[in-house]
């Protein structure tokens, strides 16, 4: 609660500073503020009869009505701008009404550099629903309940600086910590190996200067190939949980990552390569079972058009654990052991029909090591430029010891209807 208030206060402070800096730019003249937004209803119904704990939204893990308002503007010289995107959500699944600041930032532009300050969504890397060098906050609850893909990412409260010296694009991000939104027992049913009944709390990193997160990217073209290098000095965004006396405490250990990516047209399609090293700084010898061990992650992807309006994308992804012996020795009883190399394949097939008003999409995560799967079929129809509806499903299956298989009591079908204005 106090952390939440702190966050609100900090966001307000950032915006106050931003508006002070921006005011002179806008006093010189604006192009006006453009407003738009949408109304959206979204519901996901659990597919199977499950014995839910009393606190879990059992039949409908998602049931909400959402209004989004977006305002954006630029000054007349184009040297400064802002964007705000706010969601008012009536969340019937967990009986909550909330106002969410999805994005709220100010921009400065110049010939050779730009800056963006405030809450902003940042997406890096070349994977499709697989992230290696993109360590920015994500919302897997939104993914698993079938929310539109824009809700996969959460905004970072950050200062983003871009410089464009010659051919390269340099990006530096200084961000405050923000955790991922991960499944909890409020909407999800899964086996929890930690002792039941103990009160839980998470301790977020403080917000002192030394605890800020710094990420950088350098990218450029080599002919028509795109190369990028990345680093992040960040935190794990999933809490590392451990029983401490009579409670379970979650912390967010430090994480450093470094990596690179390549995108190139090969044959009649596009090849994507990405790799990164995850240095788990608070568990360098791999002997702390509550903290993820250091890992090497990599993916290779290829996508191409099959025929008109039909596209197929395939990816192979691997996570290789560095200190595997230490992991096996210290893994507590009752926890399923991971493979040293966790392999996942993905398939995406998209087909557009009727002048691109009807979209069929199928995405599959196939756990090759953990023998589990997560399938996402969907069908979207645009009734007009303003109104679309989508039906789809999130189908988890396979071994319950796997990451996706452990969620199989949460398979759901969903319906989203959006009216944009």
């Amino acid at each position, binding site marked *: 609660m106090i952390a939440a208030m702190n966050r609100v206060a900090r966001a307000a402070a950032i915006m106050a500073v931003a508006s002070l800096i921006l005011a002179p730019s806008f006093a010189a003249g604006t192009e006006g503020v453009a407003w738009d937004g949408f109304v959206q209803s979204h519901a996901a119904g659990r597919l199977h009869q499950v014995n839910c704990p009393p606190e879990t939204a059992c039949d409908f893990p998602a049931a909400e009505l959402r209004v989004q308002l977006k305002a954006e503007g*630029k000054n007349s010289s184009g040297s400064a*701008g802002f964007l705000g995107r706010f969601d008012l959500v009536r969340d019937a699944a967990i009986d909550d009404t909330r106002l969410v600041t999805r994005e709220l930032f100010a921009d400065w532009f110049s010939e050779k550099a730009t800056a963006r300050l405030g809450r902003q969504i940042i997406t890096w890397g070349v994977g499709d629903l697989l992230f290696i060098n993109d360590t920015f906050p994500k919302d897997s609850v939104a993914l698993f309940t079938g929310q539109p893909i824009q809700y996969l990412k959460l905004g970072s409260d950050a200062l983003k600086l871009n410089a464009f010296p010659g051919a390269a694009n340099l990006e530096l991000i200084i961000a405050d910590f923000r955790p991922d939104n991960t499944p909890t027992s409020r909407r999800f049913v899964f086996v929890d190996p930690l002792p039941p009944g103990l009160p839980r709390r998470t301790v977020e990193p403080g917000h002192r200067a030394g605890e800020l997160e710094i990420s950088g990217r350098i990218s450029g073209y080599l002919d*028509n190939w795109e190369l990028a290098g990345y680093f992040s000095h960040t935190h794990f965004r999933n809490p590392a949980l451990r029983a401490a006396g009579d409670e379970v405490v979650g912390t967010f250990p430090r994480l450093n990552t470094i990596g690179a990516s390549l995108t190139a047209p090969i044959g009649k399609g596009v090849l994507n390569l990405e790799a990164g090293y995850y240095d788990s700084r608070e568990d360098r010898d791999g002997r702390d079972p509550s903290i993820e061990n250091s890992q090497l992650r990599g993916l290779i992807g290829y996508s191409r058009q099959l025929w008109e309006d039909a596209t197929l994308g395939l990816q192979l992804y691997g996570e290789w654990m560095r200190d595997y012996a230490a992991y096996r020795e210290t893994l507590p009883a009752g926890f399923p052991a991971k493979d040293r190399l966790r392999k996942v394949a993905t398939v995406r097939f998209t087909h557009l029909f009727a002048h691109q008003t009807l979209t069929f999409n199928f995405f599959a995560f196939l756990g090759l090591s953990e023998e589990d799967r997560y399938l996402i079929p969907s069908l979207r129809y645009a009734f007009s*430029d303003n109104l679309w509806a989508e039906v789809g499903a999130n189908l988890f299956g396979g071994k319950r010891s796997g990451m996706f298989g452990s969620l199989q009591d949460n398979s759901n079908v969903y319906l989203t209807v959006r009216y944009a204005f």
Partner: protein
Amino acid sequence: MKPLRRIVFSLVALGAAVSIPARAAEPSADEIVRRSLETFYYAGNDMRAKVQMKLINPQGKVREREMTMLRINLGKSGDQRYYIYFHGPADVKSTSFLVWKYPAKEDDRWIYVPALRLVKRIAADDKRSSFVGSDFTYEDVSGRDLDDESHALLRKEDLGGRPAYVVESKPKAAADSSRRVSWIDAERWLPLKEEYFDARNEPSRTFTADKVEQKGKYWTVTARGMKNLQSGHRTEVVFREVEYDVGLKQDIFTERYLRDAPSQWVR
């Protein structure tokens, strides 16, 4: 651009010289198509336009797309870059497209998805697939290669009061269309009308240049339509604020401006 034009003109001159014995004044079909592609897709060193597209289904229901299109020519190779920014409708606002077009190989194409702040490279083996659900293909928007088809001059006739060469073009490789008949303005070199025939030689689509105006030094088709004769779906496009040689720089056609629209040009 200049070298390309020089090549084109010298080829035109060469063609004229070669064909003197047969037909004193008429250029060959290849020259006509070459000049037409040059005029229609390469005018100026660069171009900026506001483009309004109406997608009209057989029941008369209209969907609209409003875009800013920027284009730059990169010189002798015939390479071009296109930047297309969507102003509306609301659901696609701020989406942008980048195309690096090469006459002799597959284009490079990127899309920017604003909700995720994501730049994604898209497989571009689909020059003949629909551009944003319209009846125009990517190829119709950014041009086709002269050498992909063989061209024959059928006749010369007036169309809507304009003198026009009627040229038949057939794809050299197997394609989903069998031929295209084009009426090309004999003085301004712009296509006035095109009839497309499918693989069974049935009429499939009709292009019409509905309004031709001089913008700066260049004759420009400012209103055009494409009708799918088999489905009844049609697309109407209006070009407004057309400007040539405005001084676009090549770096506008990169990831940086895909993410942040260049406000000097995208208004």
